[in-house]
């Protein structure tokens, strides 16, 4: 399938707003999903219909882990959206500001005119349907027909109902985007790496192997791991990230293994191997056999800005004994 949107320029900015990592641009959302296995969760509602939350839209909220892998691999950078706005709008030149305000006013006036025009159209139509306001053609024909009628000639033509010549109420617009008027934030303004939970090494390991991760709350784990886009695949693993020396109960392994096997998945535990053999190039790892296209891109891995400790993972399934 050929994407019909213009290619997204990398690195792209991720907005950091109130502790969340958000993407506001639909092409970027599609790009992140298509090329970087990053799904996120759509969280946007219609502002004046916030109860209507069955289908959500942009912005896309990224898990901190997702934002982090994008930043580590050099595909994206984090910008402090509040600071960018404060700075951008305060430092805007007077002409730009006035032009922007004028633009908003014009759009608002246009909207008001449109509202009035529609209201007039509606009232016209209703009047016509009730026969109180004959259409132009109708007027001529009735006047001809009515030549023999009782009120012939005496009746003055019905005066056209004029739109009330009130001053237009301006509509105040809340702009849905800040870029423009602000220009795209520069990578030089980028914040540092996002804070991530301790399960992140396992996330990154699975991500480099081409897996897609979704939050694992439904199965009581950290991530549900999909071998491809979750719209096309069932998940393969319920993954829980652990520290190399973090103690866990065998009951958790039994519970995770049993639950996973019950839903045709495997329970996966893993973590950074301290003092393990350094796996220098993760791109040498084979692609998953079910989809050779998921092979991690060698160039991408080389661009990685961060030293990666090897991760070791164990798959657990019920033995059926």
């Amino acid at each position: 399938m050929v994407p019909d949107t213009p290619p997204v320029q990398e690195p792209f900015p991720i907005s950091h707003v109130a502790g969340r990592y958000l993407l506001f641009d639909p092409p970027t959302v599609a790009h992140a999903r298509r090329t970087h296995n990053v799904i996120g969760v759509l969280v946007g509602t219609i502002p004046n219909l916030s109860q209507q939350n069955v289908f959500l839209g942009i912005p896309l909220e990224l898990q901190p882990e997702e934002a982090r892998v994008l930043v580590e691999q050099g595909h994206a950078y984090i910008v402090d959206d509040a600071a960018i706005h404060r700075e951008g709008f305060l430092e805007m030149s007077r002409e730009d500001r006035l032009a922007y305000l004028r633009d908003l006013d014009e759009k608002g006036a246009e909207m008001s005119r449109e509202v009035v025009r529609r209201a007039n159209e509606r009232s016209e139509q209703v009047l016509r349907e009730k026969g109180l306001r004959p259409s132009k053609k109708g007027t001529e024909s009735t006047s001809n027909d009515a030549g023999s009628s009782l009120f012939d000639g005496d009746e003055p033509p019905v005066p056209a109902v004029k739109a009330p010549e009130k001053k237009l109420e301006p509509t105040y617009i809340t702009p849905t985007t800040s870029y423009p008027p602000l220009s795209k934030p520069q990578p030089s303004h980028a914040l540092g790496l996002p804070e991530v939970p301790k399960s992140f090494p396992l996330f990154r390991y699975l991500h480099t192997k081409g897996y897609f991760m979704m939050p694992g709350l439904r199965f009581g784990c950290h991530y549900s791991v999909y071998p491809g886009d979750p719209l096309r695949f069932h998940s393969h693993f319920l993954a829980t990230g652990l520290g190399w020396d973090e103690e866990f109960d065998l009951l958790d392994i039994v519970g995770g293994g049993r639950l996973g096997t019950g839903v045709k998945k495997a329970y996966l535990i893993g973590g950074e191997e301290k003092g393990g053999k350094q796996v220098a190039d993760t791109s040498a790892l084979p692609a998953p056999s079910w989809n050779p296209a998921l092979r991690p891109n060698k160039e991408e891995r080389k661009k990685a800005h961060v030293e990666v400790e090897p991760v070791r993972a164990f798959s657990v399934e019920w033995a059926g004994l």
Partner: protein
Amino acid sequence: MSLTVSAPPARAPIQSLIAQDSSPKTHDPALHSLALQIQHNLQYQHNWSALHIYTHSPLTGALLPRPLLSGLPPHRLYVHPDEQIELLKDADRARKAKEGETGALEVKAAPEREWILPARLSEKWTLRRLAEVFDGVSQVPPEEDGKVRETSKWRETKRVVLATVDTDSTVVYYIVQDGIVKPRQN
């Protein structure tokens, strides 16, 4: 009411098995008796054969973190999903070859030796300890003569059957594989 003093009850078979064990104690006695308990369970409850207790790694000869078992299950314990697809195709071909017969698919997978890791439910584990166990075992347990029999070509990762026993002697078995291995589609 009088209390009759009777002889203590006879030992349970597992008790005498543990008491009579004369193998050299290389580990904590509790770990040896744990291995014996799992061996007993596999042999008599699950019909496993060729059970053997390892105290040293067959790979390096170093002392294992705890005594491990190897054994042969009566049926194949684990079939890799890719192998399952192949087996089903083979079975389908075999059924078609015998024309007219519309029996069920007969999937044939020879049993393979497995490593068994005995553990108690009350224990705490870490990834490091689990990795140490995996580092000490070979991909396929050796036969009695020390040779390794050929196994299905889909057996590419080390796997260990984690046998967890609770205080009431219930034993549950889970297959743990070293690495990311896609799940079976039962």
